């Protein structure tokens, strides 16, 4: 038992450094569903099986054809003639014995007819190369029970992904460039007391040169405030004057030349960001004002209960500030001073988290739930990430496709550039129509390419008319989409496989932020775009 745990830690080491043991645990408890084991589908699953997803189920009623084996790493020559779900499961399962692979030898439509509740058990359903009607049927079933749905389609040199989820909350968004939470503009009492304990003027050189820049800025800010009627430096001129004040504070040698004090250089460099006013980000304010936060009930998810508790904190103990994050960046300093300063922030964060926990407790009580529902650890994590919380709402497919709610503005404005990725989206929707009318995709056989161009063009025209879209699509794209012949080249499927798998991992782990809601990859130009349709 211990051996397997240790070897799993080693095996997954490189990814554990990204989403942690807790993220891995959620992944290992997830069960994903793939519909259609085409190359795109198996590539997506490969990138979920390798990191150790708990289980997968492939639903596919197709029989393996020669061309399926040609572009799919998880089908072999002797898969030809067998059911595709079964054949692919074998070779995918072989990738990782930690994962449990299952298959259903039926089409999605059959399952929707006979047992739509089959889909309720999954953490997420991935539908690959689906016809429009199957897509919409599935979309409606999954929307009703809140199971996220990821639609993927590799069509020629185009990759398409559509995420369908009513509400997806993210506590750990891991932003790339987060601003520090230093509170220099509104220091809490413990920070002020700590700063008071420093007397820069009377320090020996060694101590002076190893005082953290946070303290330096705080000290000089105090002086500035008394000299400027309590107003901090606001514009470039004032900030430059403030920087100069700090430079003047650098110790001088006997001959008047400035000493080498890197900590003061750091302080000067950080003036701009250090003077950023501490405030609740507007994105978080919006969340505070949302319906889910305002109406906490016994049905409310943990995220909203904790958010409401933080909101109450902001209104009361926080005096307009979020709970302190509790971390400081590394900086030139001797060990003791740095640790002491770090502890001041850490202790404040603990204090604030405890206050938030009290609000959580009383909220849970009013809704009749026990306080054990939310652990101290959960609350601390939430507080630490309070400034970075994200909630993603993706519209349903029904909304995207309905004439009354189609996103005309987005489509029309993107088509101002006639070669933007939006044209590929419109072509895909036109190809949907072609399939509806002719029960096949355009240009699959060589002899069809020419004659299908005019047929596809009719579909394009009817699509634009139905949605009343005043845009024009170059004939070249219509020709190109007939040329594709619904091909699924492996490299494009593999790109989509990587992209989609990571979105699935985001959805399951609730870490990092998923896209919203349409992603288009153009392999011809190696460009991509994301649209909210």
């Amino acid at each position, binding site marked *: 038992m211990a051996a397997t745990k240790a070897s799993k830690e*080693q*095996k*997954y*080491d*490189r*990814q*554990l*450094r*990204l989403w942690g043991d807790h993220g891995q645990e959620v992944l290992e408890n997830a069960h994903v569903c793939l519909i259609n084991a085409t190359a795109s589908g198996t590539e997506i699953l*490969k990138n979920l099986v*390798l*990191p*150790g997803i708990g289980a997968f189920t492939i639903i596919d009623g197709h029989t393996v054809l*020669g*061309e399926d084996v*040609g*572009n799919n*790493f998880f089908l*072999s*020559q*002797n898969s030809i*003639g067998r059911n595709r779900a079964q054949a692919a499961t074998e070779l995918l399962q072989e990738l990782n014995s930690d994962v449990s692979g299952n298959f259903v030898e039926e089409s999605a439509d059959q399952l929707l007819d006979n047992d739509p509740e089959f889909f309720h058990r999954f953490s997420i359903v991935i539908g690959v190369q689906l016809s429009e009607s199957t897509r919409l049927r599935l979309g409606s079933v999954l929307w009703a029970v809140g199971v996220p749905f990821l639609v993927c389609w590799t069509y020629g*040199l185009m990759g398409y992904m559509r995420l369908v989820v009513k509400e997806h909350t993210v506590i750990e968004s891991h*932003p*790339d460039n987060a601003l520090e939470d230093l509170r220099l503009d509104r220091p809490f009492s413990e920070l002020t007391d700590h700063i008071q304990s420093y007397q820069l003027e009377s320090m020996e050189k060694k101590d002076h040169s190893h005082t953290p820049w946070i303290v330096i800025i705080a000290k000089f800010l105090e002086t500035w405030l008394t000299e400027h009627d309590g107003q901090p430096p606001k514009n470039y001129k004032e900030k430059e004057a403030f920087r100069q004040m700090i430079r003047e504070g650098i110790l001088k040698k006997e001959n008047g030349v400035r000493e080498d004090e890197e900590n003061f250089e750091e302080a000067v460099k950080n003036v701009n960001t250090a003077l950023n006013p501490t405030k609740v980000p507007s994105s978080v304010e919006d969340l505070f004002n949302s319906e889910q936060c305002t109406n906490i009930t016994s049905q409310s998810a943990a995220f909203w209960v904790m958010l409401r508790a933080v909101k109450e904190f902001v209104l009361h103990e926080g005096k307009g500030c979020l709970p302190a994050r509790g971390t400081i960046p*590394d*900086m030139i300093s*001797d*060990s*003791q001073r740095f*640790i002491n300063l*770090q502890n001041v922030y850490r202790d404040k964060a603990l204090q604030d988290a405890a206050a938030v926990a009290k609000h959580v407790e009383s909220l849970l009580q009013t809704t009749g739930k026990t306080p054990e529902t939310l652990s101290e650890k959960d609350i601390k994590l939430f507080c630490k990430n309070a400034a970075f919380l994200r909630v993603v709402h993706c519209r349903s497919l029904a909304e995207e496709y309905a004439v009354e709610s189609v996103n005309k503005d987005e489509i029309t404005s993107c088509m101002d550039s006639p070669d933007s990725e939006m044209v590929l989206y419109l072509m895909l929707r036109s190809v949907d129509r072609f399939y509806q009318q002719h029960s096949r995709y355009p240009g699959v056989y*060589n002899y069809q*390419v020419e004659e299908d161009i005019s047929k596809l063009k009719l579909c394009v025209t009817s699509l634009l008319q139905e949605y009343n879209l005043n845009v024009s699509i170059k004939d070249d794209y219509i*020709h*190109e989409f007939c*040329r594709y*012949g619904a*091909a*699924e*080249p*492996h*490299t*494009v499927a*593999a790109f989509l*496989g*990587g*992209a989609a*798998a*990571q*979105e699935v*991992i985001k959805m399951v782990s609730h870490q*990092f*932020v*998923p*896209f919203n809601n349409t992603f288009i*990859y153009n392999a011809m130009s*190696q*460009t991509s775009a*994301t649209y909210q349709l």
Partner: protein
Amino acid sequence: MADSDEPMVVEGGAGDGEWEGRWNHIQKFLERPGPFTHPDFEASSESLQFMLETCKVLIIGAGGLGCELLKDVALSGFHNIHVVDMDTIDLSNLNRQFLFRLKDVGQPKAEVAADFINTRIPGCCVVPHFKKIQDFDETFYRQFHIIVCGLDSVIARRWMNGMLLSLLVYEDGVVDPSSIIPLIDGGTEGFKGNARVILPGITACIDCTLELYPPQINFPMCTIASMPRLPEHCVEYVRMLLWPKDKPFGDTVGLDGDDPEHIKWVYQRSLERAAEFSITGVTYRLTQGVVKRIIPAVASTNAVIAAACATEVFKIASSAYAPLNNYMVFNDVDGLYTYTFEAERKDNCSACSQVPLDMRFSSSSTLQEVLDYLTESSYLQMKSPAITASVEGKNKTLYLQTVASIEQRTRPNLSKTLKELGLADGQELAVADVTTPQTMLFRLSFTS
């Protein structure tokens, strides 16, 4: 393998291991004319033949990107593939390097990868090379039509870049197109990645854009030695100062990041160091990460970048579309983000600009200053350059680090001035380094 099914022969295709429809998905791009194809493109049923039988692709690296590249290239109609990798398989590779299994740990990556592909994809012939890229010379590299790199080292990239530049033939200052071997380069780190197409002698090369690979920042020594603040400082202290002092596993035994016993030792001592300074946060995982300079990695990013690279291989070999021009960046931390731009050639690129580079120093500057310039300048970033010059008609090694006896002999030169070393204004210095397969020429200009 296939004892039940009779392989069906494709018209005009190879013999064994072929079946009907195998190349349907690719054929459409090769046999049909289209509105967006490259001007050189000619729709033909023979292109597939060329790609399968004649085109030779070299894949450098059989790791995270390499495994994906092998699969992608093999499934795109290329059956003559060589792969070079000097590493053996480690347990921590298995979360993404899908051609390897638990039983393969310890075996050479190139060989296991080639085996897997050749078995899974009938007709494909991957030739493995369990070697360093530097073990081969131009006769090896010249045989390939396209080279794709899935490396994890900037030094190796620069070396490959230099090798392909050295193959270029110039006539009257114009490069002979038949001497150009396209280089497709991919790199990943966590959720970020990039793919680029380099046409040596034509487009920006690796060294033209060296600022895109900023040098690793190491912690200052005084922090490590006397003022640790972060758990990482504690680990570096043990690695850099304590280990050489204590020599815990023997006098000549260096720290091996892959040896769990070594890491355990470092971890224990790092905990002690941290406790001394009341620093929290030292874990086994953190310790290993610092010692091995581990970069987090997942299957998905490697899949995306390798796929983009392989798409370019296909485009270039088939002329089906214009290749990426010339750099794509990818990041899926927040949604999915790509940015595609044309990296520009540098006129004075240290690798591809063809003319000896200017080096301006005062005649009273020391050789040490020249050495520092070569290693610290952001557009040269050399590792351990060896400097030679022609002095009084004889070739003189001014300084060389990589051979201990020569290093000792030439060390006194570092503190000598350029004038004292007998160097003249306008003379050429030849510099060799791991970052380039060919010696680089610099022209020395005295400022005073």
